[in-house]
């Protein structure tokens, strides 16, 4: 037990250092870029809640990210919602959308689940093309960042960064709590061995649905927040490529680890930023990096570092996390579908 408490203490220290770094970072790097990284990191973390801890590979998470972006943009621009209420509106809609898509998809297993989520997300995409409030190809432009609580002006890039950081931290804490909760424990047991969990009296589908809704909700929160950073909601956010990108980020960073999706998202967003000049080549380079990483680190970057670290110390993997288990096995098909 002694080692456990010291582990907790170390965890808090690491957490404090990370927060401090996130606070000073905009003095060194462009705040809007950092805010974008945080939005995608939250999106990937939400996706990982489903893939890493429920073992479900969704190929339709762009629907939640992108549709919520439209809702939040519309609420802020047309209805004059304050930023936190606009995000709340987008997040609530994502929860409902998650419940509907989840109910339709959750009974499917493996690749069929991925296909059903993709098909339903495509339906959401077509609604976004057709519905008047999304303004088709133009998207919703010039979304005001507004005043936080009606008081603090978020127009400056620093202000919006710290606002996004707060949303990011709330989202990540919700995910962390979910993973380390009584519910998270049952979820992991279902991921590990569904028939056994059922034989112990757990209705696996209900837990998976709950995880799906939570994941969709936080993905929607990330999408709603991104709108305020760029003052824009567009079809890019709701297109299937976005669903692929979040799979990529999560696997690259490490499925089933808390930090993995955040690292993966940072790498991909940074790459896209610096490779923007080379245009179409970006995709090819991205693909090559991804292939390289998957071949070299089967557990993703963070997963691999953790694995090497625990092996070096001759210890065992932490119980809360999954290394090469079922979930990562199921994702093996993902890069193929994406490329």
């Amino acid at each position, binding site marked *: 037990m002694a080692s456990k408490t010291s582990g907790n203490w170390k965890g808090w220290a690491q957490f404090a250092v990370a927060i401090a770094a996130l606070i000073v970072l905009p003095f060194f790097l462009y705040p809007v870029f950092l805010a974008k990284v945080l939005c995608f990191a939250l999106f990937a973390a939400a996706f990982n809640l489903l893939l890493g801890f429920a073992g479900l590979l969704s190929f339709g998470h762009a629907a939640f990210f992108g549709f919520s972006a439209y809702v939040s943009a519309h609420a802020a621009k047309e209805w004059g919602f304050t930023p936190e209420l606009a995000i709340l509106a987008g997040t609530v809609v994502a929860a409902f959308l998650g419940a509907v898509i989840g109910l339709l998809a959750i009974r499917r297993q493996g690749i069929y689940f991925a296909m059903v989520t993709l098909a339903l997300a495509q339906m959401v995409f077509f609604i976004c093309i057709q519905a008047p409030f999304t303004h088709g190809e133009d998207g919703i432009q010039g979304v005001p960042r507004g005043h936080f609580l009606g008081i603090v002006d978020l127009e400056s890039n620093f202000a919006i960064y710290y606002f996004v950081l707060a949303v990011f931290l709330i989202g990540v804490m919700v995910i962390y709590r979910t993973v380390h909760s009584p519910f998270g424990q049952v979820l*992991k047991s279902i991921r590990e061995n569904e028939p056994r969990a059922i034989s112990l009296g757990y209705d696996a589908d209900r837990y998976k649905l709950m995880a799906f809704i939570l994941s969709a909700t936080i993905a929607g929160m990330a999408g709603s927040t991104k709108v305020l950073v760029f003052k824009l909601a567009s079809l890019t956010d709701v297109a299937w490529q976005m669903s692929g990108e979040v799979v990529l980020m999560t696997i690259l960073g490490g499925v089933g680890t808390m930090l993995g999706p955040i690292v993966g998202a940072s790498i991909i967003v940074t790459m896209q930023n610096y490779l923007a000049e080379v245009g179409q080549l970006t995709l090819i380079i991205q693909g090559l990096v991804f292939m390289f990483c998957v071949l070299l680190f089967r557990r993703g970057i963070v997963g691999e570092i953790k694995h090497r670290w625990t092996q070096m110390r001759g210890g065992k993997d932490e119980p809360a996390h999954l290394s090469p288990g079922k979930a990562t096995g199921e994702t093996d098909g993902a890069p193929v579908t994406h490329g």
Partner: protein
Amino acid sequence: MTDIAIETEGLTKQFGGFYAVQGVNLQVKRHTIHALIGPNGAGKSTCFNLITKFLQPSSGKIRLNGQDITTTKPAALARRGMVRSFQISSVFPHLTCAENVRVALQRQMHNSFKFWKPESVLHELDDEVDEILKSVGLWDMRGAMAVELSYGRKRLLELATTLALKPEVLLFDEPMAGMSTGDIQMVVDLIRKAAEGRTVLMVEHNMGVVADLSDTITVLQRGQVLAEGSYEEVSNNPEVRAAYMGGHA
């Protein structure tokens, strides 16, 4: 209440045109140990899957304590006190031994949907978990991942997890498969102890264990009941002898 815990009536399961289980009438008396035996492929595991509703029967009825459960969901059945183990060891590989048992105990806390509560609320189960792990000799492995255990120990962990639920009706599919001789004696004792005041239905190939534990034995062959009775009756039945010689030759 009737004194029959599990009852099947004309239980039948077809895979394509093939009858894996055909017209099985089974009656498991309350608070007895009932063994289901038969050559490989006789339909024992299929029977288990039907009774625990992991498979839907093609026809026939299943009753638990006199109540029809033919359309009940498997998880709901577990909550009604009928818990099974699997023929192939079935643990949660990337959870620790303690967590494996704790997940089973957790259900009674009615907090398994609470994603906003910290995991630490589960620590109140720690003592009970320790006790259960001690009973199968796995206490010193409580922090190890289940995937790291030997096959025999995985089976012990599975048994511990099943017993943790204190179910009214227990179904074991070949609990002794892959166990060392020493462990077999421990499991026999555990099952005998667990069976006090409970009903047990088990599939087992080890005849010593079957003779030792069971009150009643049902012999299945090609999906149908061939014989039923005490160990003496069944083992002296010429048809059963023939089936076993045929099955293994």
